Each structure stands twice: as C-alpha cells, then as structure tokens.
C-alpha cells in the first residue's frame, strides 16, 4: 500500500499528463464538431510536435521558444495537408464517414513510417523549459514543466473559448458543427472551415507534444498511446466544450497515475479502458453531457 506522499506525488504527475490528454481531446473535439470525423491521426500531431521541436533544438540549435512556435506552425501545416490531400477529396466524393475515419488511421501509420525513415526510430527528449527544478514541498517534488503545462494549457483553453465565442471565424466554425448546409447558405466557406479545424487541431496536438516531451520522451510510436488516451478523454468530456475535454483529460491522467501506484504500471491502460467502458455504458454523452458550447 503506498503512503500518502507517494500517492500525492503520483497524482501530481498524473495531473500534468492528464492536462496533455485534455489538450489532445480538445483537438479531437474541434475536428469532430466541425465535420463529424473522429481523426485517429490526432496522436500523430502530438508525436510530430515533440519530434520537430527536438530536431529544431538539436540540429539547428534554435532557442526553445522559436523551436516550439515553428514546430506548431509546421504541424498545423501537416494538418492542413492531411485535410487537403485525404479528407477533402473523400468528403467531396461523399465517402461514408467510417471510410474517412479509417483513412485517418491509415494517415497515422503512413506518417509514423515517414518519421522512422526521415528522423529515425530512436526515442529522444529535451530539457525542461525552466532548468533547476524540481520545486520541493517537503517530500513532494514538482517539476517546473508541470507549471508550464498548467500555464500553457490554461492560456490555450481561454484563447480557444475567446476564439469560438467572440470572433467571427470562431462562430462560423461552431455554426458548421451545428448545421453545415445552413452555414454554407449564409456564405460560410464550409470546406475552408474544415481545413481550419484540422490546422487548429494539429496545432493543439503539437503544443501538447512539445509540452510533455521533457517529462518523458518522444518517438515515432508515442502517437498511438497519446491518441487513444486523448480520445478517451474526449469521450469522458462528451465531445463538448474545451473545458469539459480538459477536465476529462485531467481526470483520466490522475486516475491512471493512481492506478499505477495501487496496482502497478501494467494496469494503467486497463484502468483507462475500464473508465472508457463505464462512461460509454452509463454516460454515453460523456460525464458532462455535451455541457457548454461546442468547440
């Protein structure tokens, strides 16, 4: 049985990972609500964020901020490419939704292979954004990176809320999520909005990947676990508002961390999938039932 401090330490660590799941979940929601598509390539954006940032830091020697910004822009462009080359042609040909969703899975595998061939298959990491940690509170150690994740996560959620509720384009994106035909009839370019949703979602994934890499590692294979956990977090949040997705991710991260302490690391995914099944069985609309305005 773990003592209280061990448990608290683990839960704090889980909070950081959970917030990252939350950001990935928001990415899922942005695309799903704009198009009805569950983008299973979402985890790829997280992996690419970390990989690009690492490459820019180590090979080009860029400072962290520049590497992060350029990586986010590059991954957003990858998101746009996925939409333009794969999703849009299928969308225009009125392909069934399940076929488009399967195509996103194929995109994930394809990008994984491209990363192995170009950047290699070895795991890599880079230092925390602020060196000199962790912050010690008695027996509890809190890495500075957790504060970066908390801060950036909060800023991104607030920025997204403002974007979706206060800007013309943000409202148009929400309109597309509710009634695409009506949106088009009012002059909203629905195809461009779908492209924007992919760019936004990819950028969120990249930011999540850049933030989490210093606390663990990144490699071509991290996309799967991050994608699945982000998807579970999105379901817990009900594919609704950004805060709901973030809360869903945080809950998942913290519960997983608790499961590791109580049952061992092997049970981490068992617990995550059990939570998924419980939510699907008893709360099919998520714990928050689509609470709040959709993103």
């Amino acid at each position, binding site marked *: 049985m773990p003592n209280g401090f061990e448990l608290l330490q683990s839960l704090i660590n889980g909070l950081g990972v959970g917030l990252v799941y939350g950001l990935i979940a928001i990415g899922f929601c942005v695309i799903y609500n704009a198009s009805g598509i569950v983008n299973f390539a979402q985890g790829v954006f997280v992996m690419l964020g970390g990989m690009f940032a690492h490459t820019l830091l180590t090979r080009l020697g860029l400072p962290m901020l520049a590497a992060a910004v350029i990586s986010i822009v590059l991954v957003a462009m990858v998101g746009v490419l996925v939409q333009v080359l794969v999703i849009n042609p299928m969308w225009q040909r009125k392909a069934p939704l399940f076929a488009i969703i399967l195509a996103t899975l194929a995109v994930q595998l394809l990008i994984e292979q491209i990363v192995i061939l170009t950047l290699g298959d070895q795991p890599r990491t880079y230092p925390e954004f602020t060196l000199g940690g962790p912050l010690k509170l008695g027996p509890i150690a809190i890495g500075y990176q957790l504060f970066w994740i908390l801060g950036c996560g909060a800023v991104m959620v607030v920025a997204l809320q403002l974007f979706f509720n206060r800007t*013309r384009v943000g*409202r*148009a994106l*929400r*309109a597309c999520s*509710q*009634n695409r*035909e*009506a*949106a*088009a*009839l*009012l*002059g*909203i*370019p*629905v195809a461009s909005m779908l492209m924007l949703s992919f760019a936004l979602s990819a950028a969120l994934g990249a930011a999540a990947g850049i933030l989490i890499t210093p606390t663990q590692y990144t490699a071509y294979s991290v996309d799967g676990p991050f994608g699945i956990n982000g998807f579970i977090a999105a379901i817990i949040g009900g594919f609704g508002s950004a805060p709901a997705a973030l809360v869903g991710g945080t809950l998942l991260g913290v519960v997983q961390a608790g499961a590791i302490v109580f049952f061992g690391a092997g049970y981490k995914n068992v617990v995550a999938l059990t939570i998924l099944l419980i939510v699907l069985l008893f709360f099919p609309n998520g714990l928050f039932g689509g609470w709040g*305005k*959709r993103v």
Partner: protein
Amino acid sequence: MTADSPSPALIEVNGLAASYGHVAALKPIDLRVEEGEFVTVLGPNGAGKTTLLRAMSRLIASDGKIKFKGRDITGVPTHRLAKLGIIMVQEGRGLFSEMTVQENLQLGAYGLGGSRDQVEGRFEQVFRLFPRLRERAGQVAASMSGGEQQMLAVGRALMAGPKLLMLDEPSLGLAPMVAAGILDTLGELNRSGLGILLVEQKAPQALKLARRVYILSSGYMRAELPAQDIKSHHDLARYYFH
C-alpha cells in the same frame, strides 16, 4: 431575359433537373423571378419543391443553367451565393440551435465581413421587423417557439442583405395566425423591393402575396400563371393531376 422585360431577370433557371440516385426528383424545368417580384411555387407533398430550391442553392448537383441578373452562376458554390445576394431559408428553419438569437443573426451577416456599422444597421432592421427577437436576443434558438424560430430564420437571412430570398415552406408546423404573420412580413419585405421565391403547399395565403405562380407536381412544372387566375382548390387540383 423575356420579351416583355428589358432587363435580365433577377434569377432565371433553364432546364434545371435533379435526381437522387436513379430517381429523377426534378424534370427539366424553367423558372424566373424578376427584380422585386414575389413568385410562389405551389405543389403537393413530394412534388419536388424542396429539390428545386436545393438545386438552385447548389446544395445538390443538378443539370441545367442558372442565371442571376444575367450572369451565369451555374457552377458557383453554395457559400458564394450569399455574397451575390441569394439567400435561402431552409425547410425546418436550419437554425444553429445551440446558439443564441444574437449569434444566429451575427452569422447571417457573415458575408458582410467585419463591417460593424453595417452589421449594427442590419440588426436594427431585423429587430424593427421582429421586435420579439430583440427581447430574445440572449436566448438559445432551440428554446424558442416554432413561430419565433421562423422569425429568427427569416431575420437571419435578412442580415445578409439579400436581393432574392428563397423560402422553403416557412409556414410548415406553425399555427395559422403565426404563419399568417410571417407571410405578412414577407409581403412587407417584397413591397420594399426584395425579390421573393416562396415554395408552399398552403395555397390561399401564398396566392394572396404572389404576382405569379408556378405549379409543380411529380417533378414537372405543370403551369405558370398569374396568381389571380387561381381562384379555388379545384383550379389547383386540375394542374396537380392533369
């Protein structure tokens, strides 16, 4: 352009045809609406009325030609029609039901860009026509009554400053008094110069407002005649089933 109209029609459709798979829902038809004219398309259930408006709005693929003020707009995508001044109010209203009245109206003005003064002016216009919408500005669209939702659908369309307003059965599901109020407003808008193409099943009210009437049945355009020539249901039935 017709022989007795020197300027091009507001909208002119030639040989418009549409199908769902192998089922031809709309056989090649011709139709036109002059500037500032009120035209009604009447037809029974399944006549192809909604298909006609969806084809004209480019929501579904179709054959034939569509001209707007003499310009061929056949290949123009749906979202560009609003900027030209063609707005359609869908059957079932097509509201953004999780958004507020204010947000729905703001989205109606999407094509105006960021011009705040113009948008404010349109808000005032719409609120003057439908004062109820001003009272309900902060309310979510889904929580309003059917009549209020229809007001919002028409108000939202007006936010775009249309030259041609196409409406698909706006009276559907409304109490007769409420439907009459909506149609009266459409008459008022038409008197101020707005071209209106109204698709309806309920003949009496639609006939009172229209100058010309098209009669559509089983996907065929059966007749085009002045509204005053239809005096009874018997006249209509003759066209529906001939």
